[in-house]
Protein backbone atom coordinates (compact mmCIF):
# COMPACT_ATOMS: atom_id res chain seq x y z
CA UNK A 1 0.00 0.00 0.00
CA UNK A 2 2.62 2.66 0.87
CA UNK A 3 4.42 1.72 -2.34
CA UNK A 4 1.68 3.20 -4.52
CA UNK A 5 1.11 6.37 -2.46
CA UNK A 6 3.48 8.63 -4.45
CA UNK A 7 1.83 7.49 -7.68
CA UNK A 8 -1.63 8.16 -6.26
CA UNK A 9 -0.66 11.67 -5.17
CA UNK A 10 0.89 12.37 -8.55
CA UNK A 11 -2.25 11.24 -10.34
CA UNK A 12 -4.53 13.26 -8.07
CA UNK A 13 -2.63 16.45 -8.88
CA UNK A 14 -2.23 15.74 -12.58
CA UNK A 15 -4.44 17.30 -15.23
CA UNK A 16 -6.71 14.80 -17.02
CA UNK A 17 -5.57 13.59 -20.46
CA UNK A 18 -9.09 13.64 -21.84
CA UNK A 19 -10.96 16.72 -23.04
CA UNK A 20 -14.51 17.51 -21.93
CA UNK A 21 -15.68 17.21 -25.50
CA UNK A 22 -18.87 19.16 -26.19
CA UNK A 23 -17.58 22.10 -24.12
CA UNK A 24 -13.93 21.95 -25.10
CA UNK A 25 -13.17 21.27 -28.73
CA UNK A 26 -9.98 20.09 -30.34
CA UNK A 27 -9.42 21.60 -33.74
CA UNK A 28 -8.67 18.92 -36.38
CA UNK A 29 -5.30 19.32 -38.11
CA UNK A 30 -4.76 20.90 -41.53
CA UNK A 31 -5.83 18.61 -44.33
CA UNK A 32 -8.48 16.84 -42.28
CA UNK A 33 -11.07 15.15 -44.47
CA UNK A 34 -14.43 16.22 -43.11
CA UNK A 35 -17.72 17.15 -44.78
CA UNK A 36 -17.20 17.87 -48.49
CA UNK A 37 -18.73 21.13 -49.72
CA UNK A 38 -19.54 22.04 -53.31
CA UNK A 39 -19.05 25.52 -54.71
CA UNK A 40 -21.76 25.56 -57.38
CA UNK A 41 -20.47 28.66 -59.12
CA UNK A 42 -17.26 26.88 -59.96
CA UNK A 43 -18.88 23.62 -61.14
CA UNK A 44 -18.48 23.12 -64.89
CA UNK A 45 -20.59 19.92 -65.03
CA UNK A 46 -17.84 17.59 -66.16
CA UNK A 47 -19.12 14.88 -63.74
CA UNK A 48 -15.63 13.58 -63.04
CA UNK A 49 -16.54 13.49 -59.34
CA UNK A 50 -19.40 11.09 -60.04
CA UNK A 51 -17.03 8.70 -61.78
CA UNK A 52 -14.38 9.03 -59.08
CA UNK A 53 -16.71 8.46 -56.14
CA UNK A 54 -16.23 4.88 -54.87
CA UNK A 55 -19.65 4.64 -53.21
CA UNK A 56 -21.87 6.51 -55.69
CA UNK A 57 -22.68 9.21 -53.16
CA UNK A 58 -22.79 12.04 -55.70
CA UNK A 59 -25.96 12.62 -57.68
CA UNK A 60 -27.24 15.36 -59.95
CA UNK A 61 -30.45 17.24 -59.36
CA UNK A 62 -32.85 17.21 -62.32
CA UNK A 63 -33.93 20.83 -61.99
CA UNK A 64 -30.72 22.66 -61.23
CA UNK A 65 -28.30 20.26 -63.02
CA UNK A 66 -25.86 20.62 -60.13
CA UNK A 67 -24.26 17.82 -58.09
CA UNK A 68 -25.01 17.04 -54.46
CA UNK A 69 -23.25 14.64 -52.09
CA UNK A 70 -25.30 12.38 -49.89
CA UNK A 71 -23.33 12.14 -46.66
CA UNK A 72 -25.05 8.90 -45.67
CA UNK A 73 -22.92 7.15 -48.25
CA UNK A 74 -19.87 9.40 -48.35
CA UNK A 75 -16.73 7.75 -46.96
CA UNK A 76 -14.73 10.98 -46.83
CA UNK A 77 -11.94 9.68 -49.03
CA UNK A 78 -11.47 13.01 -50.81
CA UNK A 79 -11.29 11.54 -54.32
CA UNK A 80 -13.90 13.99 -55.64
CA UNK A 81 -12.00 16.99 -54.25
CA UNK A 82 -8.82 15.66 -55.81
CA UNK A 83 -10.29 14.97 -59.24
CA UNK A 84 -12.29 18.22 -59.63
CA UNK A 85 -10.60 20.33 -62.34
CA UNK A 86 -11.91 23.65 -60.99
CA UNK A 87 -11.56 22.81 -57.28
CA UNK A 88 -15.30 23.22 -56.80
CA UNK A 89 -15.40 20.46 -54.17
CA UNK A 90 -13.41 20.98 -50.97
CA UNK A 91 -13.07 18.93 -47.81
CA UNK A 92 -13.83 20.92 -44.66
CA UNK A 93 -12.96 20.26 -41.05
CA UNK A 94 -16.59 19.73 -40.09
CA UNK A 95 -17.15 16.27 -38.60
CA UNK A 96 -20.31 16.45 -36.46
CA UNK A 97 -22.74 15.30 -39.10
CA UNK A 98 -25.39 13.40 -37.14
CA UNK A 99 -28.83 14.83 -37.85
CA UNK A 100 -32.56 14.05 -37.74
CA UNK A 101 -33.29 15.91 -40.94
CA UNK A 102 -32.45 14.09 -44.18
CA UNK A 103 -31.97 17.38 -46.02
CA UNK A 104 -29.14 18.22 -43.63
CA UNK A 105 -27.38 15.01 -44.60
CA UNK A 106 -26.72 16.34 -48.06
CA UNK A 107 -23.87 18.52 -49.16
CA UNK A 108 -24.96 20.81 -51.93
Amino acid at each position, binding site marked *: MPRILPQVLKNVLRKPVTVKYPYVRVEPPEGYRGRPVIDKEKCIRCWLCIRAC*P*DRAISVSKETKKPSIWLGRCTFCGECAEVCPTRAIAMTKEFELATYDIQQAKSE
Partner: protein
Amino acid sequence: MTFVLPIGPQHPALKEPEFFRFEVKGEEIVDVDIHLGYAHRGIEEALSRRNYKHNIYLSERICGICNVVHTTTYCQAVEQLAGVEPPERAKYIRAIIMELERIHSHLLWLGIAAFQIGFNTLFMLAWRDREYVMDLREMISGSRVHSATNTIGGVRRDVKTEHVPTILRGLEKLERSTKYYINLFGSDRTILARCTNLGVLSKKDAIKFCAVGPLARASDVKTDIRADDPYGAYDALSFNVVIEREGDVLAKGMVRLREILESIRIVRQALKEMPGGPIRTRVGLQMPPNETVERTEAPRGELLYYIRSNGTDTPERVRVRTPTYGNFASMKSMFVGGTVAEIPIVMWGIDPCFGCNDRVTLVDSRTGKTRIVSFDELRRRRK
Protein backbone atom coordinates in the same frame (compact mmCIF):
# COMPACT_ATOMS: atom_id res chain seq x y z
CA MET B 1 -18.65 -36.54 -18.45
CA THR B 2 -18.17 -33.36 -20.41
CA PHE B 3 -20.31 -30.26 -20.58
CA VAL B 4 -20.64 -27.94 -23.52
CA LEU B 5 -19.95 -24.27 -22.86
CA PRO B 6 -21.07 -22.14 -25.77
CA ILE B 7 -19.42 -18.71 -26.08
CA GLY B 8 -20.71 -16.27 -28.63
CA PRO B 9 -21.87 -15.10 -31.14
CA GLN B 10 -22.92 -12.43 -28.65
CA HIS B 11 -20.82 -12.54 -25.53
CA PRO B 12 -19.32 -9.92 -23.24
CA ALA B 13 -15.87 -11.50 -23.46
CA LEU B 14 -15.77 -11.14 -27.22
CA LYS B 15 -16.15 -7.79 -28.86
CA GLU B 16 -17.04 -9.31 -32.21
CA PRO B 17 -19.54 -11.97 -33.29
CA GLU B 18 -17.92 -15.39 -33.43
CA PHE B 19 -19.07 -18.69 -31.99
CA PHE B 20 -16.90 -20.98 -29.87
CA ARG B 21 -18.10 -24.27 -28.47
CA PHE B 22 -15.97 -25.37 -25.55
CA GLU B 23 -16.24 -28.86 -24.13
CA VAL B 24 -15.35 -28.69 -20.46
CA LYS B 25 -14.74 -31.30 -17.82
CA GLY B 26 -15.19 -29.38 -14.61
CA GLU B 27 -12.93 -26.39 -15.03
CA GLU B 28 -10.72 -27.98 -17.66
CA ILE B 29 -11.23 -27.46 -21.38
CA VAL B 30 -11.01 -30.72 -23.29
CA ASP B 31 -12.14 -29.61 -26.72
CA VAL B 32 -12.97 -26.54 -28.74
CA ASP B 33 -15.05 -26.09 -31.85
CA ILE B 34 -15.01 -22.84 -33.80
CA HIS B 35 -17.75 -21.57 -36.11
CA LEU B 36 -16.79 -18.62 -38.24
CA GLY B 37 -18.72 -16.51 -40.67
CA TYR B 38 -20.98 -14.30 -38.55
CA ALA B 39 -19.25 -11.22 -39.90
CA HIS B 40 -19.50 -12.29 -43.53
CA ARG B 41 -20.12 -9.21 -45.66
CA GLY B 42 -19.51 -10.52 -49.17
CA ILE B 43 -16.60 -8.18 -49.74
CA GLU B 44 -14.72 -10.46 -52.13
CA GLU B 45 -17.71 -10.60 -54.44
CA ALA B 46 -18.17 -6.84 -54.17
CA LEU B 47 -14.49 -6.36 -55.00
CA SER B 48 -14.99 -8.10 -58.34
CA ARG B 49 -17.82 -5.73 -59.28
CA ARG B 50 -16.08 -2.39 -58.86
CA ASN B 51 -13.22 -0.93 -60.79
CA TYR B 52 -9.64 -1.04 -59.52
CA LYS B 53 -9.69 2.47 -58.14
CA HIS B 54 -12.94 2.11 -56.22
CA ASN B 55 -11.72 -1.17 -54.79
CA ILE B 56 -9.00 0.62 -52.83
CA TYR B 57 -11.64 2.11 -50.57
CA LEU B 58 -13.51 -1.15 -50.26
CA SER B 59 -10.39 -3.13 -49.34
CA GLU B 60 -9.66 -0.43 -46.78
CA ARG B 61 -12.91 -1.38 -45.09
CA ILE B 62 -12.16 -5.09 -44.72
CA CYS B 63 -10.51 -4.32 -41.41
CA GLY B 64 -10.73 -1.09 -39.49
CA ILE B 65 -7.59 -1.57 -37.45
CA CYS B 66 -5.19 -2.65 -40.19
CA ASN B 67 -6.64 -0.70 -43.12
CA VAL B 68 -3.40 0.74 -44.53
CA VAL B 69 -1.85 -2.70 -44.78
CA HIS B 70 -4.90 -3.90 -46.71
CA THR B 71 -4.74 -1.05 -49.20
CA THR B 72 -0.96 -1.33 -49.55
CA THR B 73 -1.20 -5.01 -50.38
CA TYR B 74 -4.01 -4.37 -52.79
CA CYS B 75 -2.21 -1.49 -54.50
CA GLN B 76 1.06 -3.42 -54.73
CA ALA B 77 -0.77 -6.31 -56.35
CA VAL B 78 -2.47 -4.02 -58.88
CA GLU B 79 0.82 -2.27 -59.57
CA GLN B 80 2.29 -5.65 -60.37
CA LEU B 81 -0.58 -6.33 -62.77
CA ALA B 82 -0.07 -2.97 -64.45
CA GLY B 83 3.70 -3.42 -64.48
CA VAL B 84 4.51 -0.12 -62.81
CA GLU B 85 6.76 0.64 -59.89
CA PRO B 86 5.72 3.33 -57.38
CA PRO B 87 8.25 6.13 -56.77
CA GLU B 88 10.77 5.62 -53.96
CA ARG B 89 9.29 8.36 -51.80
CA ALA B 90 5.85 6.77 -51.99
CA LYS B 91 7.29 3.48 -50.72
CA TYR B 92 8.80 5.25 -47.71
CA ILE B 93 5.56 7.06 -46.93
CA ARG B 94 3.71 3.76 -47.11
CA ALA B 95 6.22 2.21 -44.73
CA ILE B 96 5.85 5.10 -42.25
CA ILE B 97 2.07 4.89 -42.18
CA MET B 98 2.11 1.09 -41.98
CA GLU B 99 4.47 1.16 -39.02
CA LEU B 100 2.39 3.79 -37.24
CA GLU B 101 -0.53 1.46 -37.80
CA ARG B 102 1.39 -1.45 -36.30
CA ILE B 103 2.16 0.64 -33.21
CA HIS B 104 -1.48 1.58 -32.76
CA SER B 105 -2.67 -1.98 -33.35
CA HIS B 106 -0.26 -3.44 -30.79
CA LEU B 107 -1.12 -0.78 -28.21
CA LEU B 108 -4.78 -1.58 -28.79
CA TRP B 109 -3.97 -5.23 -28.20
CA LEU B 110 -2.17 -4.37 -24.98
CA GLY B 111 -5.15 -2.37 -23.75
CA ILE B 112 -7.69 -5.12 -24.42
CA ALA B 113 -5.35 -7.79 -23.03
CA ALA B 114 -5.06 -5.80 -19.81
CA PHE B 115 -8.83 -5.44 -19.77
CA GLN B 116 -9.27 -9.21 -20.20
CA ILE B 117 -7.08 -9.99 -17.21
CA GLY B 118 -8.90 -7.37 -15.16
CA PHE B 119 -6.11 -4.77 -15.11
CA ASN B 120 -8.16 -1.73 -16.06
CA THR B 121 -5.51 0.86 -15.19
CA LEU B 122 -3.15 -0.53 -17.80
CA PHE B 123 -6.04 -0.61 -20.27
CA MET B 124 -6.59 3.12 -19.79
CA LEU B 125 -2.87 3.92 -19.97
CA ALA B 126 -2.33 1.90 -23.16
CA TRP B 127 -5.26 3.55 -24.87
CA ARG B 128 -4.08 6.98 -23.75
CA ASP B 129 -0.77 6.33 -25.49
CA ARG B 130 -2.57 4.98 -28.52
CA GLU B 131 -4.15 8.41 -28.93
CA TYR B 132 -0.71 9.88 -29.65
CA VAL B 133 -0.35 7.55 -32.64
CA MET B 134 -3.87 8.29 -33.79
CA ASP B 135 -3.12 12.02 -33.69
CA LEU B 136 0.03 11.48 -35.76
CA ARG B 137 -1.93 9.46 -38.29
CA GLU B 138 -4.64 12.10 -38.40
CA MET B 139 -1.99 14.73 -39.09
CA ILE B 140 -0.27 12.75 -41.84
CA SER B 141 -3.25 11.25 -43.63
CA GLY B 142 -6.24 13.42 -42.71
CA SER B 143 -8.21 10.85 -40.77
CA ARG B 144 -7.73 8.96 -37.54
CA VAL B 145 -8.50 5.49 -38.82
CA HIS B 146 -9.20 5.23 -42.54
CA SER B 147 -6.15 6.92 -43.95
CA ALA B 148 -7.12 6.75 -47.67
CA THR B 149 -3.47 7.53 -48.43
CA ASN B 150 -2.64 4.72 -50.81
CA THR B 151 -3.53 4.78 -54.42
CA ILE B 152 -2.52 2.67 -57.40
CA GLY B 153 0.96 3.88 -58.33
CA GLY B 154 1.93 5.66 -55.14
CA VAL B 155 0.37 7.70 -52.36
CA ARG B 156 -2.01 10.66 -52.47
CA ARG B 157 -0.54 12.73 -49.71
CA ASP B 158 3.02 13.70 -48.92
CA VAL B 159 4.60 13.76 -45.46
CA LYS B 160 5.36 17.46 -45.08
CA THR B 161 8.66 18.67 -43.64
CA GLU B 162 6.90 20.63 -40.92
CA HIS B 163 5.25 17.41 -39.74
CA VAL B 164 8.55 15.63 -39.12
CA PRO B 165 9.42 17.26 -35.74
CA THR B 166 5.89 16.55 -34.44
CA ILE B 167 6.16 12.91 -35.50
CA LEU B 168 9.55 12.56 -33.82
CA ARG B 169 8.25 14.14 -30.63
CA GLY B 170 5.26 11.75 -30.63
CA LEU B 171 7.54 8.77 -31.19
CA GLU B 172 9.70 9.81 -28.23
CA LYS B 173 6.65 9.82 -25.97
CA LEU B 174 5.65 6.41 -27.30
CA GLU B 175 9.12 4.98 -26.84
CA ARG B 176 9.19 6.09 -23.22
CA SER B 177 5.82 4.55 -22.42
CA THR B 178 6.51 1.35 -24.38
CA LYS B 179 9.71 0.79 -22.42
CA TYR B 180 7.68 1.27 -19.26
CA TYR B 181 5.16 -1.35 -20.43
CA ILE B 182 7.92 -3.81 -21.29
CA ASN B 183 9.30 -3.37 -17.81
CA LEU B 184 5.80 -3.78 -16.40
CA PHE B 185 5.12 -6.93 -18.40
CA GLY B 186 8.26 -8.54 -17.05
CA SER B 187 7.79 -7.59 -13.41
CA ASP B 188 4.18 -6.88 -12.45
CA ARG B 189 2.72 -9.60 -10.22
CA THR B 190 -0.80 -9.41 -11.64
CA ILE B 191 0.38 -9.79 -15.21
CA LEU B 192 2.85 -12.55 -14.41
CA ALA B 193 0.21 -14.49 -12.48
CA ARG B 194 -2.37 -14.19 -15.26
CA CYS B 195 -0.13 -14.63 -18.32
CA THR B 196 2.73 -17.03 -17.69
CA ASN B 197 2.32 -20.63 -18.90
CA LEU B 198 -1.07 -19.82 -20.32
CA GLY B 199 -2.26 -20.78 -23.78
CA VAL B 200 1.14 -22.19 -24.69
CA LEU B 201 1.72 -22.83 -28.38
CA SER B 202 4.83 -24.97 -28.81
CA LYS B 203 7.22 -24.37 -31.67
CA LYS B 204 6.24 -27.72 -33.20
CA ASP B 205 2.54 -26.83 -33.18
CA ALA B 206 3.19 -23.32 -34.49
CA ILE B 207 4.93 -24.80 -37.54
CA LYS B 208 2.38 -27.60 -37.89
CA PHE B 209 -0.64 -25.28 -37.84
CA CYS B 210 1.09 -22.60 -39.96
CA ALA B 211 0.76 -19.86 -37.36
CA VAL B 212 1.63 -16.41 -38.67
CA GLY B 213 2.72 -13.10 -37.25
CA PRO B 214 3.36 -12.34 -33.59
CA LEU B 215 1.74 -15.63 -32.60
CA ALA B 216 4.41 -17.61 -34.47
CA ARG B 217 7.19 -15.29 -33.40
CA ALA B 218 6.23 -15.78 -29.74
CA SER B 219 6.76 -19.52 -30.28
CA ASP B 220 10.32 -19.14 -31.53
CA VAL B 221 9.45 -19.30 -35.25
CA LYS B 222 11.34 -16.62 -37.11
CA THR B 223 8.81 -15.52 -39.68
CA ASP B 224 8.24 -11.97 -40.84
CA ILE B 225 7.29 -11.11 -44.40
CA ARG B 226 9.06 -7.75 -44.09
CA ALA B 227 12.34 -9.63 -43.66
CA ASP B 228 11.62 -12.87 -45.56
CA ASP B 229 10.14 -11.35 -48.69
CA PRO B 230 10.81 -7.58 -48.50
CA TYR B 231 8.29 -5.33 -50.21
CA GLY B 232 8.20 -1.58 -50.67
CA ALA B 233 10.86 0.25 -48.73
CA TYR B 234 11.61 -2.58 -46.30
CA ASP B 235 14.55 -3.66 -48.44
CA ALA B 236 16.42 -0.53 -47.50
CA LEU B 237 15.29 -0.29 -43.87
CA SER B 238 17.05 -2.28 -41.18
CA PHE B 239 15.17 -3.83 -38.29
CA ASN B 240 15.26 -6.95 -36.14
CA VAL B 241 12.69 -9.72 -36.24
CA VAL B 242 11.53 -10.01 -32.65
CA ILE B 243 11.17 -13.56 -31.33
CA GLU B 244 10.39 -15.05 -27.94
CA ARG B 245 10.78 -18.65 -26.87
CA GLU B 246 8.01 -19.49 -24.40
CA GLY B 247 4.90 -19.31 -26.59
CA ASP B 248 2.58 -18.30 -23.74
CA VAL B 249 0.45 -15.16 -23.50
CA LEU B 250 3.28 -13.28 -21.80
CA ALA B 251 5.60 -14.04 -24.72
CA LYS B 252 2.92 -12.95 -27.18
CA GLY B 253 2.60 -9.66 -25.35
CA MET B 254 6.35 -9.21 -25.17
CA VAL B 255 6.74 -9.82 -28.90
CA ARG B 256 4.15 -7.16 -29.65
CA LEU B 257 5.61 -4.63 -27.23
CA ARG B 258 9.13 -5.10 -28.51
CA GLU B 259 7.81 -4.82 -32.05
CA ILE B 260 6.52 -1.36 -31.16
CA LEU B 261 10.11 -0.34 -30.40
CA GLU B 262 11.24 -1.80 -33.73
CA SER B 263 8.46 0.05 -35.52
CA ILE B 264 9.50 3.31 -33.87
CA ARG B 265 13.04 2.65 -35.11
CA ILE B 266 11.76 1.99 -38.63
CA VAL B 267 9.70 5.20 -38.70
CA ARG B 268 12.66 7.28 -37.51
CA GLN B 269 14.94 5.66 -40.06
CA ALA B 270 12.41 6.14 -42.86
CA LEU B 271 11.91 9.81 -41.98
CA LYS B 272 15.67 10.33 -42.06
CA GLU B 273 16.40 8.43 -45.26
CA MET B 274 13.29 9.41 -47.20
CA PRO B 275 14.32 10.52 -50.70
CA GLY B 276 12.67 13.46 -52.44
CA GLY B 277 10.86 13.35 -55.74
CA PRO B 278 7.36 12.54 -56.94
CA ILE B 279 4.92 10.57 -54.81
CA ARG B 280 2.76 8.92 -57.45
CA THR B 281 2.80 7.71 -61.03
CA ARG B 282 -0.35 7.74 -63.09
CA VAL B 283 -1.67 4.30 -63.97
CA GLY B 284 -4.40 3.48 -66.48
CA LEU B 285 -7.19 1.32 -65.13
CA GLN B 286 -7.28 -1.21 -68.00
CA MET B 287 -5.24 -4.14 -66.70
CA PRO B 288 -3.95 -6.80 -69.10
CA PRO B 289 -5.20 -10.35 -68.37
CA ASN B 290 -2.93 -11.78 -65.71
CA GLU B 291 -2.90 -12.94 -62.12
CA THR B 292 -0.82 -11.98 -59.15
CA VAL B 293 -0.22 -12.78 -55.50
CA GLU B 294 1.04 -10.21 -53.06
CA ARG B 295 1.77 -10.66 -49.38
CA THR B 296 2.67 -8.26 -46.64
CA GLU B 297 3.15 -8.33 -42.91
CA ALA B 298 0.06 -6.93 -41.23
CA PRO B 299 0.15 -6.20 -37.48
CA ARG B 300 -1.40 -9.63 -36.92
CA GLY B 301 0.66 -11.61 -39.43
CA GLU B 302 0.82 -12.47 -43.08
CA LEU B 303 -1.78 -10.85 -45.31
CA LEU B 304 -2.25 -12.27 -48.79
CA TYR B 305 -4.05 -10.86 -51.81
CA TYR B 306 -4.68 -12.78 -55.00
CA ILE B 307 -6.01 -10.79 -57.96
CA ARG B 308 -6.94 -12.08 -61.41
CA SER B 309 -7.53 -9.50 -64.12
CA ASN B 310 -9.24 -10.02 -67.46
CA GLY B 311 -8.37 -6.98 -69.55
CA THR B 312 -11.16 -4.74 -68.26
CA ASP B 313 -11.09 -2.17 -65.48
CA THR B 314 -12.63 -4.55 -62.93
CA PRO B 315 -10.81 -7.54 -61.45
CA GLU B 316 -12.26 -10.96 -62.15
CA ARG B 317 -11.44 -12.40 -58.75
CA VAL B 318 -9.92 -11.01 -55.59
CA ARG B 319 -9.06 -13.37 -52.76
CA VAL B 320 -8.03 -12.06 -49.39
CA ARG B 321 -6.40 -14.23 -46.76
CA THR B 322 -6.29 -12.38 -43.49
CA PRO B 323 -3.83 -13.21 -40.69
CA THR B 324 -6.49 -14.07 -38.12
CA TYR B 325 -7.79 -16.72 -40.47
CA GLY B 326 -4.34 -18.30 -40.58
CA ASN B 327 -4.16 -18.35 -36.81
CA PHE B 328 -7.43 -20.10 -36.06
CA ALA B 329 -5.98 -23.53 -36.72
CA SER B 330 -3.57 -23.21 -33.81
CA MET B 331 -6.32 -22.20 -31.40
CA LYS B 332 -7.17 -25.71 -30.30
CA SER B 333 -3.70 -26.55 -29.09
CA MET B 334 -3.69 -23.34 -27.08
CA PHE B 335 -7.02 -23.93 -25.37
CA VAL B 336 -7.04 -27.64 -24.61
CA GLY B 337 -5.81 -28.34 -21.11
CA GLY B 338 -6.51 -24.85 -19.85
CA THR B 339 -9.30 -23.62 -17.61
CA VAL B 340 -12.47 -21.69 -18.39
CA ALA B 341 -11.19 -18.50 -16.76
CA GLU B 342 -8.35 -18.39 -19.26
CA ILE B 343 -10.58 -18.24 -22.34
CA PRO B 344 -10.75 -14.45 -22.87
CA ILE B 345 -7.06 -13.74 -22.52
CA VAL B 346 -5.90 -16.77 -24.52
CA MET B 347 -8.34 -15.89 -27.25
CA TRP B 348 -7.14 -12.33 -27.25
CA GLY B 349 -3.58 -13.66 -27.34
CA ILE B 350 -3.87 -14.32 -31.08
CA ASP B 351 -5.21 -10.77 -31.53
CA PRO B 352 -8.32 -11.95 -33.37
CA CYS B 353 -9.93 -9.57 -35.79
CA PHE B 354 -13.17 -11.18 -36.82
CA GLY B 355 -14.08 -8.31 -39.06
CA CYS B 356 -11.22 -9.43 -41.30
CA ASN B 357 -12.54 -12.91 -41.28
CA ASP B 358 -15.33 -13.47 -43.72
CA ARG B 359 -14.98 -17.13 -44.59
CA VAL B 360 -16.52 -20.19 -42.95
CA THR B 361 -14.35 -22.86 -41.36
CA LEU B 362 -15.37 -25.88 -39.38
CA VAL B 363 -13.04 -27.60 -36.96
CA ASP B 364 -13.76 -31.28 -36.56
CA SER B 365 -13.71 -31.68 -32.81
CA ARG B 366 -12.72 -35.36 -32.92
CA THR B 367 -9.82 -35.24 -35.34
CA GLY B 368 -8.89 -31.58 -35.02
CA LYS B 369 -8.94 -31.13 -38.79
CA THR B 370 -10.13 -27.88 -40.30
CA ARG B 371 -12.06 -27.67 -43.52
CA ILE B 372 -13.82 -24.91 -45.36
CA VAL B 373 -17.51 -25.26 -46.14
CA SER B 374 -19.72 -23.07 -48.23
CA PHE B 375 -22.64 -21.16 -46.79
CA ASP B 376 -25.16 -23.46 -48.49
CA GLU B 377 -23.56 -26.54 -47.04
CA LEU B 378 -23.59 -24.91 -43.65
CA ARG B 379 -27.28 -24.18 -43.99
CA ARG B 380 -27.98 -27.79 -44.96
CA ARG B 381 -26.12 -28.97 -41.89
CA ARG B 382 -28.21 -26.77 -39.62
CA LYS B 383 -31.47 -28.38 -40.79
